[in-house]
C-alpha cells in the first residue's frame, strides 16, 4: 500500500502502484507520484513487481517525503517518518531494522530489484544507506518470499529510482551545517529527453558527533561529551537509461557508498578507539524488451561490500564480499486482466573474510519464480507468486505468496477495500552463520515462516473540499520456524536452529491531505502494536517461551504534519517508541521515548528557472535524554541549517 506524500487526487492511484505500457493507451492505473503523471508520448515500461504484491500493506516515501533528509540516511528518514523501530547505536552508527517483530536479518533490502543486505551479516545497516541513493523508498511489511526472495520474512524495503522522461536538464546543490560538527553537501544533476535519461547524485557528509549526554556517575548526574563517534560518509549514484526504439531499453546504475566511522563506545565502557570502514560498490545493468503482450528483461549486478573494523584490543578484522548475480524474467499479459511472470535468479558470493580463515569462501544460490496476477472482476485483484530457492546442500520449501484485494464498498466519496495476503517465506543462513570461525555452522537449515494478514482501507475523497482521508487497518500473524540463535557452547558461541517465534500485531495508519487554496496540509499518523514471542525452543535453548523478544517495542507510533503556503513550509514529526526489553526473559527494559523533530523553510524563486530553499531543522526538540539501543548515548536537542539551490 502506498501512502502518497503529495497531493494526488487520482482516486485509484493506490491500487497497486504499477506502471504500465503507456504507449498502449496509458491504460489503467498509473500511479506513481507526479513525475509519471506527465507521461511522455513514448515509453518503454514494464510491470513493476509490486503489481504482483496484491493485498499487502505498503508504505512509500517519495522524493517529497524524503526532501528533508537529502543529506541523511535511511535511518534518519525511517525513524522520523514511520512507526518502524530501528535499533540505533548512536547518530550515524549501526541501525538495524525491526519489521513486524522480527530481526534485521528478516528484512530484505532491495535496490533496483537486487538484495543488498550484507551477505556476511545477512542484514543492512540503514545508516550506510544515504537517502540520496534512491528517489523512492517503499516498505512492504510482512512476509513475501514468493515475491522478493530470500529474507523477506519481516518485510521488504525497496529502493528505486524513478526515471523521468522528457524533462530536460535539471540540477540542485545543497549545503548543510549543523550541530556537533555536521557539514554536508549534495549535488544532483539530471537530464532526460525521450531517448535518454541520466541522473547523477553526489553526497558528502561529516560529523564530529561530540554531543553531550547525561550520565549518572559516582559524583552525580553529569554531562559527558561523547568520544569516538565522528564519521565521514560519501555516496555517488549514477543512473542511465537509454531507449532503443519504441520497445526496448538498456539501463545501468552505479551506487558507491563509503563510510569511515569511529564506533561510538557504550556509556561507561572502555573506549578502544574502534573504527569501521564500510564501502559498497554496486553496479547493475539491464535490458528490457516490451511488446504488447510480452516483456523480457535481463539484469546483472556486481556488488562489492567491504567492512574493515579495528580497535585497540582486537586489532584489525577485514571483510570483503563480492556478489555477482543475474536475473532474467519473462512477463506475458495473456489477457487484459491477467499476466504472468516467469523468472530465475542466480547469485554467486565470494567472501574474503578474516573470520572465515585465509581461503575465500564461495557460495551459490539460485531461485526460480512465477508471479501471477489476475483480476477476475474490475473490483477484485488476485495474485499468486511461487518461488523455489536452491541453497548449498539445502532446499528450502516452495514459498508461495497469495494475495487478494476487493473493492468492497463504494458510495459517494467513500470507498472501502478489503485485502488479505498469506505467504510462506524463507531465509538462507548468512555467510557468517555458516562460515565464521569458530562457531560457524554449515549445517544450519534455512529459516521458514508462514504468515498471513488481513485488513481494510477506507478512503474518503471530498474532491470539492480538496480533502482526502485515507485510513488503513491491518492485522497479521506469522510463525517463524528454525529461528537461528547464537548460543554459548563449551568454548565458543555457535548459531543453531533453536526456536519458533510467533509475531502478531496490528497496524493502523491514517493520512489526511487538504488543500483549500494556497495552503496545503498533510497529516499522517500511524500506530503499530507488535507482539513477538518465542513459542517453542530446542532443549538447549535456555530462553523462556512466551516473553516478548528483546528490542521489539510493543507500541510504536508516529504523527507527522507537513504544511506549505506560498513558498513557506513547516513540518513536524513526532514519534513514540515504546519500552523495549533488553533480555529474553523480559525482565529489564529500556524506557519508552518520544521524539519531536520539526523544520521550517522558505523557497524563493530568484530568477526564472532558479529557486532557493532555506531550511532550518530541529531534532529531539523535547531535549530528551534517551537511548535507542542499550547503553548508547543519543544527542539532546540539536539542529541544522541547509541552503538548496534548484535549477529548473
Amino acid at each position, binding site marked *: 500500500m502506498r501512502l502518497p506524500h503529495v497531493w494526488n487526487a487520482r482516486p485509484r492511484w493506490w491500487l497497486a502502484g504499477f506502471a504500465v505500457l503507456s504507449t498502449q493507451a496509458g491504460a489503467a492505473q498509473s500511479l506513481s507520484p507526479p513525475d509519471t503523471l506527465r507521461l511522455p508520448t513514448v515509453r518503454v515500461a514494464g510491470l513493476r513487481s509490486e503489481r504482483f504484491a496484491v493485498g499487502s500493506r505498503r508504505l512509500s516515501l517519495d522524493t517529497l517525503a524524503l526532501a528533508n533528509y537529502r543529506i541523511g540516511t535511511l535511518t534518519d528518514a525511517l525513524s522520523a517518518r514511520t512507526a518502524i523501530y530501528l535499533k540505533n547505536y548512536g547518530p550515524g552508527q549501526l541501525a538495524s531494522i525491526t519489521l513486524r517483530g522480527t530481526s534485521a536479518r528478516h528484512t530484505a533490502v532491495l535496490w533496483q530489484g537486487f538484495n543488498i543486505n550484507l551477505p556476511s551479516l545477512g542484514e543492512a545497516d540503514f545508516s550506510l544507506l544515504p537517502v540520496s541513493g534512491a528517489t523512492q523508498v517503499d516498505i512492504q511489511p510482512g512476509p513475501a518470499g514468493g515475491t522478493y526472495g530470500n529474507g523477506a520474512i519481516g518485510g521488504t524495503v525497496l529502493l528505486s529510482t524513478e526515471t523521468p522522461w522528457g524533462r530536460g536538464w535539471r540540477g540542485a546543490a545543497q549545503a548543510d551545517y549543523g550541530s556537533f560538527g555536521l557539514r554536508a553537501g549534495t549535488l544532483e544533476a539530471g537530464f532526460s529527453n525521450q531517448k535518454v535519461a541520466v541522473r547523477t547524485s553526489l553526497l558528502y557528509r561529516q560529523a564530529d558527533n561530540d554531543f553531550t549526554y547525561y550520565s*549518572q556517575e559516582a559524583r552525580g548526574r553529569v554531562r559527558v561529551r561523547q568520544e569516538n563517534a565522528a564519521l565521514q560518509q560519501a555516496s555517488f549514484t549514477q543512473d542511465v537509461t537509454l531507449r532503443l526504439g519504441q520497445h526496448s531499453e538498456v539501463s545501468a546504475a552505479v551506487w558507491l557508498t563509503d563510510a569511515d566511522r569511529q564506533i561510538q563506545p557504550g556509556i561507561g565502557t572502555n573506549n578502544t578507539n574502534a573504527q569501521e570502514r564500510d564501502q559498497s560498490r554496486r553496479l547493475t545493468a539491464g535490458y528490457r524488451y516490451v511488446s504488447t503482450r510480452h516483456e523480457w528483461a535481463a539484469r546483472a549486478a556486481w556488488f562489492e561490500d567491504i567492512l574493515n573494523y579495528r580497535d585497540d584490543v582486537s586489532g584489525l578484522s577485514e571483510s570483503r564480499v563480492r556478489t555477482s548475480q543475474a536475473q532474467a524474467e519473462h512477463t506475458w499479459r495473456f489477457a487484459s486482466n491477467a499476466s504472468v511472470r516467469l523468472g530465475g535468479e542466480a547469485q554467486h558470493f565470494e567472501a574474503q573474510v578474516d573470520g572465515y580463515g585465509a581461503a575465500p569462501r564461495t557460495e551459490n544460490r539460485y531461485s526460480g519464480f512465477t508471479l501471477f496476477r489476475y483480476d477476475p472482476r474490475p473490483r477484485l485483484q488476485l495474485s499468486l507468486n511461487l518461488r523455489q530457492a536452491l541453497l548449498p546442500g539445502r532446499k528450502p520449501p516452495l514459498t508461495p505468496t497469495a494475495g487478494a484485494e476487493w473493492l468492497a464498498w463504494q458510495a459517494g466519496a467513500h470507498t472501502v477495500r478489503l485485502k488479505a495476503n498469506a505467504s510462506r517465506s524463507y531465509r538462507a543462513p548468512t555467510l557468517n552463520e555458516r562460515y565464521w570461525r569458530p562457531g560457524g555452522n554449515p549445517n544450519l537449515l534455512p529459516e521458514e515462516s508462514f504468515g498471513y494478514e488481513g485488513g481494510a482501507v477506507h478512503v474518503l475523497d471530498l474532491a470539492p473540499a480538496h480533502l482526502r482521508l485515507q485510513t488503513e487497518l491491518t492485522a497479521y500473524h506469522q510463525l517463524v520456524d528454525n529461528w537461528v540463535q547464537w548460543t554459548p557452547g563449551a568454548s565458543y558461541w555457535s548459531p543453531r536452529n533453536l526456536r519458533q517465534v510467533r509475531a502478531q500485531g496490528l497496524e493502523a495508519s491514517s493520512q489526511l491531505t487538504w488543500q483549500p487554496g494556497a495552503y496545503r496540509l498533510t497529516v499522517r499518523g500511524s500506530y503499530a502494536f507488535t507482539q513477538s514471542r518465542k513459542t517453542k525452543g530446542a532443549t538447549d535453548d535456555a530462553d523462556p517461551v512466551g516473553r516478548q523478544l528483546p528490542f521489539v517495542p510493543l507500541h510504536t507510533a508516529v504523527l507527522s504534519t507537513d504544511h506549505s503556503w506560498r513558498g513557506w513550509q513547516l513540518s513536524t514529526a513526532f514519534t513514540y517508541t515504546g519500552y523495549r526489553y533488553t533480555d529474553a526473559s523480559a525482565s529489564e527494559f529500556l524506557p519508552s521515548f518520544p521524539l519531536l523533530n520539526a523544520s521550517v523553510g522558505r523557497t524563493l524563486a530568484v530568477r526564472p528557472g532558479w529557486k532557493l530553499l532555506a531550511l532550518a531543522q530541529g531534532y529531539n526538540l523535547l531535549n530528551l535524554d534517551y537511548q535507542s539501543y*542499550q547503553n548508547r548515548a543519543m544527542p539532546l536537542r540539536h539542529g541544522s541549517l541547509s541552503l538548496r539551490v534548484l535549477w529548473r
Partner: protein
Amino acid sequence: MKPFSAFTGLTSRLLLGSAATLGLLACDPDNEPAPTEQPIVTSTVFVVNEGNFLRSNADISLFSKASSSVTSKALFNSANGRTLGDVAQSMAVQDSLGYIVVNNSNKLEVVSLAKFRSKATITGLKLPRYFAAASSAKGYVTETVSYSGSNGRVSVLDLKTNTISKSIEVGVQPEKLLVAGSRLYVTNSGGNTVTVINTATDAVEGTITVGDSPNSLVLDRDGKVWVLSGGKVAYNADYSVDYSRTTKGSLAVITPGQLTATQREVDSNTSSPSKLTINGAKNQLYYSYRRGVYTLGIGDATLPTTPLIRRSFYGLGVDPQDGTIYGGIGSFTAADKVIRYRSTGVAIDSFTVGIGPNGFVFY
C-alpha cells in the same frame, strides 16, 4: 571476621583473620599442624552478574540464605542509582569492603558491604580481571592490558587512597591471583606459569612452571597452593580443535617457598578444566570439567573420573559454611539462573539473577 569468596575471600580470612595462619605460613608448612578453625557463618551470597559485553548491564545480585531468595537483583544500581559498568569480572572482599572488578569499564568499584554504597572508584586500569588483598592497605589486580599476546600486569593498589601505586609485569593474560603469606601467586593463562611476587617488596620472586593455561588457584588448609590449568587448545586452520596438539588440563600443587610444582593431568584433552574452588574446611576441591562439576579431597591420590554434578556452569561457588554448591547458568540472553546443590550433588533449588552469573561471594 567473616569468610568471603571462593578463594580470595577465604584466603583473606585465613591469612588476615587468623594470626595463627600468618605464623603458619611463615614457617615450613609441612611440619605445622592444621590451624584451628572457628566455625564459618555466612548469611549472604553476592552473585556477580557479568552482564552483556558493551551494554553496561553488569550488577550484583543479593541472595539471602535465611529466606532462600534474592532480595535485590541489581544491588549496586539500587544502592547507588547508577549502573555498575560493563562486564563485572569478579568481586572480592577485604574487611567490610567489596572490590568489584569491572573489566570493560577499566575500573574497580569499592563498596561497603553493609549497604553496598560506593566508597571509591579505582580507575586507570587496563582490562582488569581479578582482585586480591594482602592487607587492608594493599591490594593487587590482574590486568590483561591487551589481547595481542603481550604480557599482562599486576597493579598494586593503595587501598587507603584507592589509587594505583605500582604495576608489575607478569605473563600473558594473567587471571586469578591469590595471596598466601607474604607471597602473591598469579596465574598466567596465556602461558604455563605462575608468577610469584613478594608482597612486602612487590618484587617478582620467580615463576613456577605449571600445566598450560593456568586459570584458577586456591589455598588449602595445609597452606599449599593448588593451581588448575585448562590445557592449551590447538586449532586447525578451520578453527576446529586439533586434538593431536591440544594439551590436557592439569592440577598442580605448589608448596609455598618453592618455585616448583607437582602436577597431575586430567584424563582427556577434549575439555578444559576451570573454576577451581575449595570448601570452607579447605580440604575439598571442586572444578568444572567435561560439562560437569568434579570434586576431590586434597589428600586424594587420583583425580576423579565421574562428576559430582552433571551440568556445566558459567560460575561456580561453594559456601564455606556448609559446602552448598552454587552453579550459575550463563545464557547471556535472558535473566540467568543459579542452581544450588547440596555438597552431595543433589539439587536444592534455583533462583533468578542477572545476566551471566560468573562468581559468588559468601559473606
